[in-house]
């Protein structure tokens, strides 16, 4: 029976990591449903972006309050992982405070974890107040009803509880150390949890051990559960922000890609020696669909973008269309893309990995043409996004589908386009009048 806790711990660990791995595989399969895109260019710039934006949080601090609180939570999260490593090793080996022989360094480490834990609590509380009491504009948009709202708050509750458990565990431990309990060697410094100690005063040693063990177990099980919760949450960004900022746009923001399939056709059309009536060779691949009507038509970076979106709404609050009451919200574009991709993934899971048409698609069932046509392509959303997401690229791909596959542009735009075709200008003027301004 002596090894029971160790065995239980190892089982929990294997289950936790096993489920997580399964989720990661699903995630990677779904992202790979996207089309290939060449992102092998500009490597130094890409690394710089990742270090600056994801690691350095440069875009977060554009909004100072949110930025600072986010840095607390973020640094706290990273540093506490060292503590988690100790917990895991203790759990497997049945030791207690395995790193204690580090001496003073260990004291410093534990003390800084405690301070960070407190800062995380402060950050989480401020975030909660902003979401639920102040109700910042961007957190109460229509797309934030239901799960996205619950998700946002759940994360805060979980983090709060995890930190509280951590401090409780330390407080009980500290008390036990003072009492000279077996197994609880004196180690660590407890600048924050010492304030919880008085609450535990007078409790018998067995109760204290129970408290310490319970907090310890809940803390680590909580972390494992949280790891698995990520996949279902906007919190996935804590992992994906890194690849996402690496693969983010490195060209000037105004530069849209030139569709290669179109280039080939246009070249053919403009080549006087080509026979316009020639039948395509029998082995020709099926003509490519222009633009995107569903998630599989997007490229994998766009799908990675969708999974990375933190639903912070910074894009939407900068969007001129959204600010003037139009239906377009770049955040909703990203959330819709993710939801649809998840749906496609589920259909594949249910059909042995094959996608079976469910009669739905991203266009119309999730994103309406009205939203798409409201975009001014101003790039404010791209600029604002703290994790280098490009909602505009998805909007443009879907417009391309509407125009080139469905000829479904608004009438005025059709007029504009036929003017360009006929007169080389978006207005119905004669090309011969192009130089009239000289003599006016």
């Amino acid at each position: 029976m002596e090894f029971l806790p160790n065995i239980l711990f190892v089982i929990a660990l294997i289950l936790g990591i096993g489920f997580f791995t399964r989720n990661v595989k699903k995630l990677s399969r779904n992202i790979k449903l996207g089309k290939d895109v060449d992102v092998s260019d500009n490597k130094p710039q890409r690394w710089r972006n990742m270090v600056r934006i994801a690691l350095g949080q440069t875009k977060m601090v554009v909004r100072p309050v949110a930025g600072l609180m986010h840095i607390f939570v973020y640094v706290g999260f990273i540093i506490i992982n060292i503590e988690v490593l100790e917990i895991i090793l203790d759990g497997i080996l049945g030791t207690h405070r395995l790193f204690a022989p580090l001496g003073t360094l260990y004291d410093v480490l534990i003390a800084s974890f405690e301070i960070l834990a407190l800062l995380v609590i402060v950050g989480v509380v401020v975030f909660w107040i902003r979401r639920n009491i102040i109700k910042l504009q961007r957190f109460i948009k229509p797309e934030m009803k239901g799960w996205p709202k619950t998700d946002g708050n759940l994360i805060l509750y979980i983090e709060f509880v995890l930190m509280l458990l951590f401090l409780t565990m330390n407080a009980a431990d500290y008390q036990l150390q003072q009492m000279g309990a077996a197994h609880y060697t004196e180690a660590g410094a407890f600048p924050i949890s010492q304030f919880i100690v008085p609450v535990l005063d007078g409790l018998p040693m067995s109760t204290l051990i129970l408290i310490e063990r319970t907090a310890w177990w809940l803390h680590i099980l909580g972390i494992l559960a949280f790891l698995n919760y990520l996949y279902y949450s906007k919190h996935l960004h804590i992992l994906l922000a890194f690849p996402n900022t690496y693969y983010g746009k490195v060209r000037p923001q105004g530069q849209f890609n030139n569709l290669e399939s179109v280039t080939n056709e246009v070249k053919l059309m403009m080549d006087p020696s080509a026979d316009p009536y020639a039948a395509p060779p029998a082995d020709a691949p099926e003509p490519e669909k222009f633009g995107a009507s569903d998630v599989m038509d997007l490229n994998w970076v766009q799908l990675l973008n969708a999974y990375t979106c933190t639903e912070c709404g910074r894009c939407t609050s900068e969007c001129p269309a959204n600010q003037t009451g139009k239906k377009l919200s770049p955040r909703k574009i990203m959330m819709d893309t993710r939801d649809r991709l998840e749906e496609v993934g589920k259909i594949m899971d249910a059909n042995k990995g094959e996608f079976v048409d469910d009669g739905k698609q991203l266009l119309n069932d999730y994103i309406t043409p009205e939203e798409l046509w409201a975009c001014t392509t101003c790039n404010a959303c791209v600029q604002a996004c703290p994790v280098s997401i490009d909602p505009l690229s998805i909007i443009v791909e879907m417009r391309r589908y509407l125009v080139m596959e469905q000829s479904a542009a608004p009438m005025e735009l059709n007029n504009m386009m036929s003017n360009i075709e006929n007169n080389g200008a978006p207005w119905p003027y004669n090309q011969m009048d192009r130089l009239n301004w000289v003599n006016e």
Partner: protein
Amino acid sequence: MSEQLKVKTMQEFMAEGKQPEILFWVGSAGSYDDRAKKITRAFVKLLNKANVDFAVLGTEESSTGDVAKRAGNEFLFQMQAMMNIELLNGYEIKRIVTCDPHSFNTLKNEYPGLGGKYDVLHHTQYLKELIDKGRLTIEGEVYKGKRITFHDPCYLGRANSEYEAPREMLSKTNAELVEMKRHKKTALCCGAGGAQMFKEPEKGDMDINVLRTQDALETQPNIIATGCPYCNTMMTDGIKAHEKEDSVTVLDVAELLANSLNL
């Protein structure tokens, strides 16, 4: 107002067996839109003043296709682009200057992938070059004591990170430059981009240009400066919506410089 402008076409340069220093890409708005034509003329006056040997394509110029691309018509865009590239490459054009940030962006960033590689400048960048090289001097007394606020065009600013050239040019007029709350990277769009210029806006509470003009009016300006013909139209309409057309004018940076020189 027709003081004679010196304008030569590429064909004329060819006939003389010469190459111009730059090609001035006038753009569709600059060629046909009554308000934008004034910007075109102002810029040409500055070029004439600086003795720049420039050419236009004239009746050979066609839409860059930019607006078709933003609307999603990649076909039309590439057809236009390839036609233009054939023409430009035929004339061995090296440098292009334009007053339209949309043409600027597409010529600079999207044409190279289709075989059209040029050194492309926005007119504020080129004017800065002329002034830096001492070819053009602005003695600015006309706007002294006036408050000017500059509206960053999305396709010059955020899209291509050029925020300084237009501001530096405006400072030449000796006017007082005042910044809107959101400017440079955080500037609000005028509402014309992405082909919105050519259609009615979607349903909402307000038009974007009215909101943007509000930003500008908060700085108590005498003049709203623009660097894009579409922004110019949008801000002018915005001023009308706020009934401020008697006290505030909308002028392109090129017009402000030309006026400073009494051209």
